[in-house]
């Protein structure tokens, strides 16, 4: 993908530059997991893998996912940029908004969907505001 990549957890990185880059994405990932954490008490299983990258202000990124009717999903987004405002919204394969709930709190955001049918869905990540030219983001999702 151009700006989105699967984040490998526990990656051993050799080289200072790459270490710093991964550390930043890891920070964004920590925030995504922080957003997800309360939902595990509600029975949501959070996937161990995650997706992330960096975006400029008002830039958007689509993450495509195969979701199944019968499950309920939450997508949680985090950024390491202080003061940044990010959002995630969920659309079906026709581009129709399908989320049943969403929230946004600064560097955290989340959206929920209970798919009406099994199929392909799109999580659209947007950096609404940021003091930095590009902001790292990380997305995780869970199901119940």
């Amino acid at each position, binding site marked *: 993908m151009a700006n989105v990549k699967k984040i490998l957890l526990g990656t051993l990185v050799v080289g200072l530059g790459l270490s710093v880059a991964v550390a930043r994405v890891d920070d964004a990932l920590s925030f995504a997991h922080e957003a997800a954490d309360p939902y595990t008490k509600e029975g949501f299983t959070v996937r161990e893998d995650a997706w992330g990258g960096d975006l400029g202000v008002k830039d958007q990124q689509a*993450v495509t996912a*195969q979701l199944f009717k019968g499950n309920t999903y939450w997508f949680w987004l985090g950024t390491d940029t202080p003061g940044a405002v990010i959002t995630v919204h969920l659309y079906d394969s026709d581009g129709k908004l399908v989320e049943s709930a969403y929230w946004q709190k600064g560097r955290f955001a989340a959206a929920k969907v209970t798919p009406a049918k*099994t199929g392909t869905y799109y999580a659209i990540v947007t950096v609404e505001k940021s003091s930095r030219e590009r902001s790292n983001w990380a997305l995780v999702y869970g199901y119940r």
Partner: protein
Amino acid sequence: MPVLLLGPRLQTKLILAMLSRLIPVVLCGIALAQAPAQAPPQQIDLTKFPAAAVDDVVVPVPSEVFNVLDKLGSPNWSAELRDNLGQSSGDRAQVALLLGTVIAEGFIAVQAKNAERVKKIGQEVLTLADAINVRSAVIARSKSITEKADARDWAAVRSEFDGALQDVRGAMEQLGDDDLAQLVSLGGWIRGTEVLTSIVGKNYTPDGSQLLCQPELVNYFSRRVDEMRNTRLKKSRLVTKVRRLLKDIRPLIKRDTITVETVQKINTMTNEVVVTITTQES
């Protein structure tokens, strides 16, 4: 050691001075944090997103499918378990596909609540991972699978199998074996689809058949096989067979509701490929 000591009055002055600077920042932060989220558009044009972003699909973990199956009833999972997990031929493509099928078998053993089978599968995962140099990535998982199977903590065992699949894939990608990593996922998907169609076919409901509506996922797998960098791997008999399977399944799963006849047809198709994978034909 020099220590900066401040008297109470100086401390108060400093705090007030700091507060006067901090308050606007904090208020600004609170305003930003509590700003009502802008309503998202009801409709978007997906063609405006970069093709690379939209074309890559997040491959679901098997637990997502089994989670739905749990809600659809209590099928006879024990009847779905294979007696023989299959033999490694030493061919890396075959081992990768076989590893995927064995991990998928782990999920079926969990559904069947068969602790001994789960433990045997956990050991087999370790053996196969060793054959493709990613043993260290799954040692802890294998141990945990055994412990949690002994404790009959089925949800945790399922989670460990999910994790084992991710760990194996991650380790392979780090080794630059992306093609093989894809084959592990594919092996799991093929065996998973075989058992899914078996279960749905035996107790058919339209809702159950909907679980097979995965056209974008099949397209994604097809693209990944077509784009394999390792030409020898790509042209191997086994991978060619997998590619043909994906091509043949694609038109069958495009509909929202899949007929019982189609479900059974997919079952036959996937079963043939699973047999090929597990009987060392490569």
